[in-house]
């Protein structure tokens, strides 16, 4: 009896409570965004909110299973899990079902499963396992490349299935690897390239190149120990090339709908008529979602009272745009609470990860936090118009069984690993 109680106390209840709060609040908003008519039939599987409620109950069973499995299992079998997961992604090209232009679903009878959701877990496990291996040194180029390949395989596979959103999420692994000692140069290059790309599109390649040149020259003169001037020149040439290349990439490689999204985001279109037209067409969702959020005011219109939500004016509102329901019906108070809950969840996971004694567990924790963070940042940022439209779900909130399950599994494997850290030595 004593042993049993002890076992339950080992689980991090703070994380579990935040998890439950998000799931329950998420479901309330799915209910609001998807219910039609007068009555609410809670377990009606024909309605998204009913289906989701069933998923949530099944999730509880899933949690029990995950927590019952021996912690060492996840580390030991990570390679096999990764392999199976990648095969399931490849299999999509043959057996996949096309939904909204993305071939990322398996259909079994009435059920659909999105393997890309689960591939993230497998990749976290595999990367954690590979890097924590005693023979791997993340400072070596060769090992870095092998590690990148592990990440690139699923990223490219989902990209080929037209699921750009999920591909971008794999950038999360940068945080994991950086924590484990990936050289700083990657961070610098990453930030520099992002800034260069954005500035080049917004202000033009010439302006950006000159600005970069001034920065590099100034930096060179203020460096006490003057290095060879070849290096800054090479950097400058790189900047100019990248800066000029961005426009080409934007115009020739990106698809028109992607160009439009970026153009709207960076306000590249100046003609007010065309802007207005954009808002009515591809940016319609975004425009409606911003209006819905804005109309919520401080305290919102109340649960099931949002006029835009009730009238279903924001398409995909129960999936990717679920946060606009929160904004409309719960106002600033409710939306801020959701943001704060996510921040607390992430900080808690990071805190626990740092406490881990095994590198595998720590990396896994970082992986969980990074992936949830990417989803959180991209989804809410998109719904509020801070970043270009990229379709990925809000973890634990958005409608969808695969999403809910994959995030539950992702999180609870970590809770299991964490509960085991005392036994590890």
């Amino acid at each position, binding site marked *: 009896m004593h042993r049993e109680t002890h076992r339950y106390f080992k689980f991090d209840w703070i994380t579990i409570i935040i998890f439950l709060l998000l799931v329950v609040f998420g479901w309330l908003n799915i209910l609001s965004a998807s219910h039609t008519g007068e009555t609410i039939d809670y377990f009606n599987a024909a309605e998204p909110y009913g289906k989701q409620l069933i998923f949530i109950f099944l999730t509880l069973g899933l949690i029990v299973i995950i927590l019952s499995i021996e912690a060492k299992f996840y580390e030991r079998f990570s390679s096999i899990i990764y392999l199976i997961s990648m095969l399931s992604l490849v299999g999509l090209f043959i057996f996949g079902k096309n939904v909204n232009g993305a071939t990322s679903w398996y259909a079994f009878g009435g059920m659909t499963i999105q393997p890309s959701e689960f591939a993230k877990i497998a990749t976290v496990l595999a990367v954690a396992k590979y890097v924590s291996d005693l023979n791997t040194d993340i400072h070596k180029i060769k090992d870095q490349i092998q590690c990148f390949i592990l990440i690139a395989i699923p990223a490219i596979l989902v990209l080929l299935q037209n699921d750009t959103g999920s591909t971008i999420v794999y950038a999360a692994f940068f945080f994991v690897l950086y924590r484990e000692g990936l050289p700083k140069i990657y961070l610098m290059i990453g930030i520099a390239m992002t800034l260069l790309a954005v500035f080049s599109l917004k202000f033009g390649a010439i302006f950006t190149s000159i600005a970069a040149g001034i920065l590099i020259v100034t930096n060179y003169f203020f460096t006490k120990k003057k290095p060879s001037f070849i290096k800054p020149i090479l950097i400058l040439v790189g900047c100019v090339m990248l800066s000029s290349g961005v426009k080409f990439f934007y115009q020739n490689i990106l698809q028109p709908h992607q160009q439009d999204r970026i153009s709207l985001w960076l306000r590249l279109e100046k003609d007010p008529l065309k802007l207005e037209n954009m808002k009515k067409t591809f940016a319609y969702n975004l425009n409606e979602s911003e209006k819905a959020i*804005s109309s919520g005011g401080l305290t919102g219109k109340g649960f099931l009272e949002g006029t835009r939500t009730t009238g279903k004016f924001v398409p995909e509102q129960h999936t990717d745009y679920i946060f606009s329901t929160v904004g409309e019906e719960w106002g600033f108070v409710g939306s801020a609470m959701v943001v704060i809950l996510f921040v607390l969840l992430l900080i808690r996971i990071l805190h626990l990860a740092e406490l881990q004694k095994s590198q595998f567990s720590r990396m896994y924790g970082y992986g969980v936090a990074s992936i949830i963070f990417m989803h959180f940042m991209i989804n809410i940022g998109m719904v509020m118009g801070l970043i270009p439209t990229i379709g990925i779900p809000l973890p634990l909130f958005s409608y969808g069984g695969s999403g809910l399950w994959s995030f539950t599994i992702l999180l609870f494997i970590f809770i299991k690993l964490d509960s085991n850290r005392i036994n590890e030595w």
Partner: protein
Amino acid sequence: MRKFLLFLSVILVGFLFLVRLFYLQIYSANKHDLFEDNAIRKVYDYPKRGFVYDRNGALLVANQPSYDVMFIPREVKPLDTLEFCSLLKITKDQFKQIYNKAYHYSPWLPSVFIPHLSKEDYAVLQEKMRKFEGFYIQKRSLRLYQTTIGANVLGDIGEVNNAIIQSDPYYKMGDLIGKQGVEASYEEDLRGVKGIKFIQKDRFNRDIGPYKDGIYDTLPEPGKDITITIDAKLQEYGELLMKNKRGGIIAIEPSSGEILAMVSAPSFNPNLLVGRDRSKNYSKMHYDTISKPLYDRSLLAQYPPGSPFKVLNALIGLQEKVVTIHDRFGCRMGYYLGSRRLTGCHSHSSPLSMIDGIAQSCNSYFANVYRRIIDKYDDPAQGMNVWSDHVKSFGLGNYLGYDLKIGSKGRIPDGDFYNKWYGENRWVSTYNISNAIGQGEVEATPIQLANMIAAIGNRGFYFTPHIIKNIESETIDTNYTTPKHTTIDKEHFEPVVQGMFDVYNKGTAAALRVSGIDICGKTGTAENFIKINGVKTQLTDHSIFVAFAPKDNPKIAIAVFVENGYWGSRFAGKIASLMIEKYIKDHITRTDLEDWILTHSLEDEYHKPYSGETFKINGETTLQVIPLDKSLKSKISNLSN
């Protein structure tokens, strides 16, 4: 340090999101705008538009129901286009065109699909409307004119455009608004306030029920009836007299500034601008750039006023004490500077004092007076400014401030005007001596001249001319009930009025006398030019006449312009006399004048410049005589009680 990258990123993003939420929901939260909200259907209930009555209580403008087919592009479901188009009598291409245009305006806001259904079409369509999702019928009220006259006064209503919708949120796509005349001037009184019901709906266009139990719903407020100052019979009489002529008549009641008649010729039947044919008829008239029926000559046309302007110079001369009524000036068929004749004149006895100078309209007399005014000061610019201020105090040279939306400023030059033209101290009064006789740089509109004559009839003040007499349960703007005083002292008016009285008794309008009415008037002509193939070509003079009657306590002041009618008493004077008799006596004793006007046309005269042939003007022309139109004559006799 590596521990903190993700941690700090999380904190930063969370903070950014809170700031963005604050910005969206608190800082820039437009309080929940029901009109912007696609989720709420707005059902409008349009009130009755106010009726328009004339000064004697005759109903001029009433309403008729009208049905527009409206639609919300996003809500349109696949439909049997063929059936729908045949019901509405349009082609499939037109369907697409209307749909796309509205979609471009807004997929979520209602737009007009087909305006003003005929009653028959409405009856047929109403039955089948349920089959066409996204379409509905909006009832509105259109104007029903009880008369065929006064199109320029009454104005019309038409659909609002985007610019109006953006500047005034009251108006929505498909709403009607006063476009011209009193409909535009008194739009807010006439239109009332439409009632609105807010209905919550879902994406499938289904009504769920009243939004918040209807707490925001409003009832329509009916438009207010208005009475205008126009005397419908006088207006009609004026329009009938102006048949086959172009020009304008303005008649004003001097004691109040009320506009009794406002005729612009050619005119049109106001019913042409009602309903489905409105835009077709409108553009037809709009593109008639020769006779310009939509151009209100009584308010907009700006002509040199000619001889009527001389009486102002007499008044200014007296006020500036540069002349007395007894001062005589000689005339040798014109005014000479040395041996150079600056302006001609006709034959009359000489020399003349003021009263005869006005009665005979002697150019030389007024050239002398004008020079004395301007030359009173060492600097001609200063003299010019004094003169200009006096003239402007009669409401000339600037917008009069009446309650119709269109107008012209006219032109009264001052010292600066000539300093810019010639250079400072490089000109003297003889340079612009034409101003003495109402030619040269001075220009005025018919309504400005009528107002000037009203001020003379009142011996020194006027009320700003206006068209509104009464608004149901409201008082009219005090601007129209406050007298505006001229800069001329009252005592100076008597000799000038006497001169104008003599115009009728022994002067240039002696043939136009009406027994029993003491009319004071003044004839005038204005030279005018157009460009034909780039060559400035002179046309026959405009015929001008101003008058007020009776001499004491005048009831009517009038200005008449007849384009290319030649001398003043030839067309304009006759029309002015007839209008005055009609208004004061209600029946016409000078039927000889009336018949003359009805049987003389200027259409040939107007055709000349466009004929491509060389033509003669003024004294070398012959009058075009037309047979007396019996129906016109009977219409006129119906106007008498």
